[in-house]
């Protein structure tokens, strides 16, 4: 290859995009960051509670190995183990780097990093900056990128939208098609590699804790261009959010990490003000059912319990589908210091002060564990070979993905405070592999015919022109709401095949109605509507991936709960029994009386279920439909076993 600098196009200016850009600059290559808006405003700013790293600052005996196990168990063993293990071992160095670049992490009396508790673990492992940790991390990384901008190695294309990859005749990604969101012109950008750091797809559900840019359109476009999409059906429902007509606002898990308690009145329909309900008349349902983890069970567990309390037991506050999140037993000063960010949000949107009255919360769509399928290379010792070009590579050569846009770190359910970690880890980690990929190419982007780029540009120009010419009856923004309602009613906490079948038909109906859209704005300057219609198209396609993955996966794993396939774990079951069982089986016969009554049957059911379903869902776009297949999960380090948190 000619001796010019490598040029990498990074789509997305959140934590993954920024940390990758910083690394690329440091390694003396060129980077173009493409962002839908100003860099400081990406959705990563919404992360509140913190970022995990097993530094064991409180001498509790924590270790990266424990962090690894908690993450794998939290994800119900669906994540590839070497990747998660490598991430957890890198986490302490990542936190130290973030501290060095000036993140205002809370500190101890001696001036070291302070850590707090979070869900799915018994250790204090979460570093935090008040309750606006994501915002603080984005700012610090943005500042580092600005530092390189200052000396010219970064180009930022803010207010630009990624429309698709430029693929050459061999299907290798050679650049990106972009739209300037102000002039509305379409152009192509050539690069040695393209990285999608474009976040999650919460807007498929319309109302979620996600930001308005989180349509998942960029990742979906990669899927429509032939990339594999993994584990689409695994959507995290966060247990604690507040309702609103435009969005469901997150109330961080750190509220419970700092001692917040979930409860409902014991008596159904009890309409007394919460503070006047005596303790004995309150049902602290998580503490009662899960004495060990209490309010800090993982999110999938907590959301299911809230669902059960309000819909099956009808114990929601005054008959509404909400429960209390109570912080009022904590001192005002402590709450301001540790949780000020979310307390302000709650106050501003509800008028009530959580320091005085318990918050009223409900579960909300929050995070996609699934995303673009990406590869990795293990070093053979339970870690990752960092220089491998396979790391974070999608199935389209030259197109990479990381952060929430990929599928491989959180299995069937993400643990709190692991998202910031996986975003920054993938951003930093993938850099070397991308460089190796570029060095290994026989043919560089400079040798690619300009007609390839011309064709890609023409394709998108005519696509947007077609959209602008749509003169049907349907309003695109209204159709989006209807798509969200469908997804919200049937592809949420509890999933049933009959309802999922109806969902798939309803999405098909939306897809038909899409053809009858009216492009309500046809102006040629800063016009968001054609862009939105294209995103809506992607959201419809992605909802098909999610719903089809859900209907086909006949089991209960992590956030994917189908009551029909609940294996009904016996109440006194100890997960170590399963390891005993496997050993005994290995040695020969397992005597019926070796385990308490019912346990052996349960373990056999568990084993059979894993044989069928401990695998990644892969969706590929074929014949205008998602085609689903399955791939094995790397479980080479710890043996999958039943999860238990009580």
């Amino acid at each position, binding site marked *: 290859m000619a001796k010019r600098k490598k040029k990498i196009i990074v789509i997305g200016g959140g934590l993954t995009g920024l940390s990758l850009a*910083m*690394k690329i600059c*440091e390694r003396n290559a060129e980077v173009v960051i493409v962002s839908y*808006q*100003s*860099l*400081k*405003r*990406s*959705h990563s*700013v*919404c992360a509140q509670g913190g970022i995990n790293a097993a530094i064991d600052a409180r001498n509790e005996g924590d270790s990266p190995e424990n962090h690894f196990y908690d993450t794998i168990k939290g994800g119900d063993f669906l994540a590839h183990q070497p990747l998660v293990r490598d991430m957890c071992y890198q986490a302490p*160095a990542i936190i*130290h*780097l973030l*501290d*060095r*670049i*000036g993140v*205002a992490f*809370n*500190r*101890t009396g*001696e*001036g*070291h990093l302070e850590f707090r508790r979070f869900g799915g673990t018994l250790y204090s492992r979460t570093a935090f*900056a008040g309750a606006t940790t994501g*915002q*603080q991390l984005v*700012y*610090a990384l943005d*500042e*580092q990128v*600005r*530092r390189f*901008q*200052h000396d010219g190695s970064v180009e930022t294309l803010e207010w630009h939208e990624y429309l698709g990859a430029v693929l050459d005749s061999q299907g290798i990604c050679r650049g990106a098609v972009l739209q300037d969101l*102000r002039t509305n012109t379409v152009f192509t950008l050539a690069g040695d590699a393209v990285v999608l750091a474009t976040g999650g797809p919460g807007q498929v559900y319309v109302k979620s804790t996600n*930001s308005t*840019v989180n349509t998942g359109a960029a990742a979906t476009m990669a899927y429509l261009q032939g990339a594999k999409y993994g584990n689409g059906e695994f959507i995290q429902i966060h247990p604690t959010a507040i309702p*609103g*007509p*435009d*969005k469901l*606002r*997150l109330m961080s898990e750190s509220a419970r990490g700092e001692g917040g308690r979930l409860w409902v009145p014991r008596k159904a329909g009890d309409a007394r003000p919460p503070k006047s309900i005596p303790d004995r008349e309150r049902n602290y349902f998580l503490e009662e059912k899960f004495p060990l983890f209490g309010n800090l069970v993982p999110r999938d567990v907590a959301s299911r319990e809230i669902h059960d309390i309000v819909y099956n037991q009808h114990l929601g506050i005054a008959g509404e589908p909400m429960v209390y999140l109570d912080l009022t037993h904590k001192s005002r000063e402590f709450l301001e*210091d540790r949780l000020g*960010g979310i307390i302000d*949000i709650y106050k501003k*949107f509800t008028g009530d002060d959580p320091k005085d009255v318990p918050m009223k919360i409900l579960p909300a769509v929050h995070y996609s564990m699934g995303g673009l399928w990406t590869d990795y290379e293990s070093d053979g010792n339970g870690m990752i070979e960092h220089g491998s070009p396979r790391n974070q590579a999608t199935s389209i050569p030259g197109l990479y993905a990381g952060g929430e846009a990929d599928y491989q770190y959180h299995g069937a359910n993400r643990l709190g405070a692991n998202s910031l970690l996986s975003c920054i880890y993938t951003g930093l980690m993938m850099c070397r592999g991308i460089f190796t990929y570029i060095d290994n190419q026989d043919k560089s982007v400079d040798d690619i015919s300009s007609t390839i780029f011309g064709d890609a540009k023409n394709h998108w120009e005519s696509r947007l022109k077609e959209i602008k010419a749509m003169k049907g009856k349907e*309003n695109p*923004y*209204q159709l989006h*709401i209807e798509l969200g309602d469908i997804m919200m009613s049937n592809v949420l906490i509890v999933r049933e095949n009959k309802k999922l079948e109806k969902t798939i038909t309803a999405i098909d109906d939306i897809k038909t109605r899409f053809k009858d859209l009216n492009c*309500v*704005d046809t*102006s040629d*300057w*800063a*016009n968001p509507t054609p862009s939105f219609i294209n995103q809506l198209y992607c959201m419809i396609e992605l909802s098909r991936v999610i719903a089809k993955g859900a209907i086909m996966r006949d089991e209960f794993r992590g956030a994917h709960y189908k009551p029909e396939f609940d294996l009904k774990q016996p109440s006194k079951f100890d997960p170590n029994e399963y390891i005993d069982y496997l050993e005994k089986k290995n040695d020969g016969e397992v005597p019926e009386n070796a385990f308490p009554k019912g346990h052996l049957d349960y373990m056999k059911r568990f084993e059979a279920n894993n044989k069928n379903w401990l695998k990644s869902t892969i969706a590929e776009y074929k014949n205008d439909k998602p085609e689903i297949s399955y791939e094995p999960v790397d479980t080479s380090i710890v043996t999958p076993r039943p999860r238990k948190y009580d």
Partner: protein
Amino acid sequence: MKGNIVNEKTVKLKIKRQDKPNSKIYWQEFKIPYKERLNVIACLQDIQRNPTTQLGESVNPVTWDCNCLEETCGSCTMLINGKVRQACTALIDSLEQPVILEPMSKFPVVRDLQVDRSRMFENLKKVKAWVEIDGTHDIGEGPIMSDKVRSQRYALSECMSCGCCLEACPQFSLTNNFLGAATFSQVRLFNLHPSGSMLKEERLDAVMGEGGITDCGNAQVCVEVCPKSIPLTESIADIGRQTTLQTLKNIFMK
């Protein structure tokens, strides 16, 4: 009669519109159905779904910037009933109607309620608002810092570059080059960091020239409009003191 909406509560909005940066300004009024917990964003979204004015004229939907909808990203800043603030936290129940929406006036208009605030980010470059580091490789822990200093820094670091302080500032205008409170406060933020302070002199030099700290007229409105209650006037006073010392140092050392 079906469609008779006399008894139904509505929300009236009056919106200042502009199709392009230099095109003419015009106003349109909209009436949308009232719902509980409505904020200005939800009203604008309603207009997208039914882009018809109060007079029944079908128009292009209003354009505006937004993202997080929880006052963390800073995008949706605009003038609401004449006051600069974020549209997401502007709840209809606490606003007088018609709700008057205008774009910020101290930044160039892109379209309707969207403005171009890139000047704010350029200013951050001018004052080197970052910590210089040797590299991103693992070289161990960051500097020891008291939680008191951390807490002071955190308050400043919550600045989301929304531009409220600049919109309200009588000194900051579309045509001058005044840096403004947000930028001064960032200088203080980085000068407070143990390794960030290594660039302290360069930062102070950057705020000592034209458009710098001495141009501040002490109107103190910046701090009143800051949605994150950042102690901006304290920052201005502190940077004032730091630059005075720097001036003396420059006289004696050069």
